[in-house]
């Protein structure tokens, strides 16, 4: 390590050098921000979906990656957020922006309830417990006549925000969720979160309130996910329980995060790009082959590169940096 100080500064590692990362991120956001004015409407449609997935994966990553709680129940937040926004617009004529804000409140409340229910559970039990909560909500929504039962809801066309607005809302969700993840990597609170993930008993022994830490991350993640659910509702207009409370949301969140790199800021974003644009979009007419491929990819990644694509890139970058260093000396 000695004597490489100057070298490290000129050859930034992919992670840990906040300056370079922030520059790349700012450039990417700026490029994405001009798409509605500069790009075609089909590019905007594709990118809106991609941004929604990236935001969802990042929101799940907070709980699944940083807090180590493998939630299978995050579809419940998408559904709760979407349904809350739609119900508010339909029943009370609430403006779209206010409806999104109130769906955040409902998402936070639901996350708090789920945290209380799952409070005594660890590891595998969290996964199956949250799955049961999500399936219970789905079963309830299919039967609850107040929200249209299995027929679902339709948002009146006059109340819809423009497609550009939806695009920017999705972009804002990606930025917001990623900032939270970035903050978790650098703050003392984030350190406590990761300590609970890596060794809950140890963390508790040194005075970390594991229960509170996990609940806070769940509430933040649930709030973000519900907001994205509301954005999805305005994008899809027609809401049926299967499409909003169904497991396909959380399945996508998990595979994107795992394939991209669990517990990293860049991982879920890369994973969303690879899985949505690289597989699902290219195989749009054969969704069953896309599902088969993603399933196989998840197994391959977890066996061969458990840190995901981002982790593999970091390893390659570290290897290249060592080679360069070795050649100089």
């Amino acid at each position, binding site marked *: 390590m000695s004597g490489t100080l100057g070298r490290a500064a000129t050859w930034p590692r992919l992670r840990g050098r906040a300056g370079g990362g922030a520059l790349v991120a700012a450039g990417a956001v700026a490029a994405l921000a001009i798409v509605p004015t500069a790009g075609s409407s089909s590019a905007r449609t594709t990118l809106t979906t991609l941004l929604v997935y990236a935001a969802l994966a990042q929101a799940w990553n907070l709980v699944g990656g940083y807090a180590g709680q*493998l939630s299978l129940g995050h579809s419940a937040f998408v559904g709760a957020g979407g349904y809350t926004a739609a119900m508010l617009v339909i029943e009370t004529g609430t403006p779209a922006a206010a409806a999104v804000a109130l769906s955040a409140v409902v998402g936070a409340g639901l996350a708090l309830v789920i945290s209380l229910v799952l409070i005594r559970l660890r590891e595998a039990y969290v996964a199956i417990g949250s799955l*049961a909560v999500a*399936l219970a909500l789905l079963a309830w929504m299919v039967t609850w006549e107040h929200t249209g039962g299995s027929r679902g809801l339709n948002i009146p066309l006059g109340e819809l925000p423009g497609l550009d607005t939806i695009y920017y809302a999705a972009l804002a969700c990606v930025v917001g969720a990623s900032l939270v993840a970035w903050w978790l990597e650098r703050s003392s609170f984030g350190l406590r979160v990761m300590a609970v993930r890596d060794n809950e008993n140890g963390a508790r022994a040194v005075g970390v309130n594991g229960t509170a830490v996990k609940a806070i991350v769940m509430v933040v993640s649930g709030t973000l996910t519900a907001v994205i659910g509301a954005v999805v509702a305005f994008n899809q207009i027609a809401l049926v329980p299967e499409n909003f409370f169904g497991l396909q949301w959380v399945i996508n969140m998990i595979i994107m995060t795992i394939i991209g790199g669990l517990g990293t800021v860049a991982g879920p974003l890369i994973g969303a790009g690879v899985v949505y644009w690289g597989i699902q979009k290219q195989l749009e007419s054969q969704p*069953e*082959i896309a599902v088969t491929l*993603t399933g196989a*990819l*998840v*197994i391959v990644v977890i066996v061969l590169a*458990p840190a995901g694509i981002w982790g593999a890139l970091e390893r390659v970058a570290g290897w290249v940096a060592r080679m360069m260093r070795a050649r100089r000396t």
Partner: protein
Amino acid sequence: MISVSTIVNGVLLGGLYAVIALGLSLIFGVMRLVNLAHGVFVIGGGYLSYLVTTHLGLDPLVSLVLVAPALFAAGYVAQRAVFTRLVLRGTEPAMVATFGLMLLGHGAYTVAFSSNPKTLSTGYSNTGFDALGVRLRLVDVVGLAFGIVLTLAVWVWLQKTRSGVAVRAAAIDPGAAETVGIDVARMYALAAGVAGALAAVAGVIVGIGYSFTPTGGIAYLTIGFTVVVLGGIGSVAGTFLAALVIGLAQAVGGAVFGPVYQLLCVYALFVILLAVRPQGLFARRAHT
């Protein structure tokens, strides 16, 4: 409302749930692994039997002679090739891999068999008879019979045979088991194989009595886990009792609130159970 018929049919349904949950319980108990692909194995049993019955003209129950060994092999090989090394790394990577296997199954079944529901047609699918003044379906009675027989078989295997004791030793302390000469990786594969064979039986019963779709395993997975948690980890008898309780809860819930609320009752029961008594009703001691 609640009639004798509801109670009896709930108990019979519980027999099927016992078969589903036994395999899950075995893998969870031995490796601490939440096998999210268990539903895919159950449905795979259904599809495999569908192939055997249509091409060889065998009865679905007779087809188990081929289907159960096939799924035993599938479980054994998958465990050897992929899951054991992941389990040794920690429970989470292995669970994520079962999640990948679940997706792989959903996709592959849809490619091979389309998403239309399939049933295993037999001459006796709807054959019924009267007993205790109640109309019973033959297939449901067969399901309960399998539940009882397989529960006893698994119990005898784990308690009374050499390989069963070795599997339990590998479950309780893999390191110590390894030092006394037990091949832990082989015991894990054996447990996964038996779980696969149990899933095959469950899939055939589901196929005869009901119908199945590529993604239909998720409902059975959740019901299976409800049973496993209620029964307590590692308790074979507890699992069987819990399966009867869940079958009853579903039947009674459906009779009281209406058929659409059947599954909601089961899920709600599970969530309440996890919040109040996560170690299960029949667990003798925590098993960590």
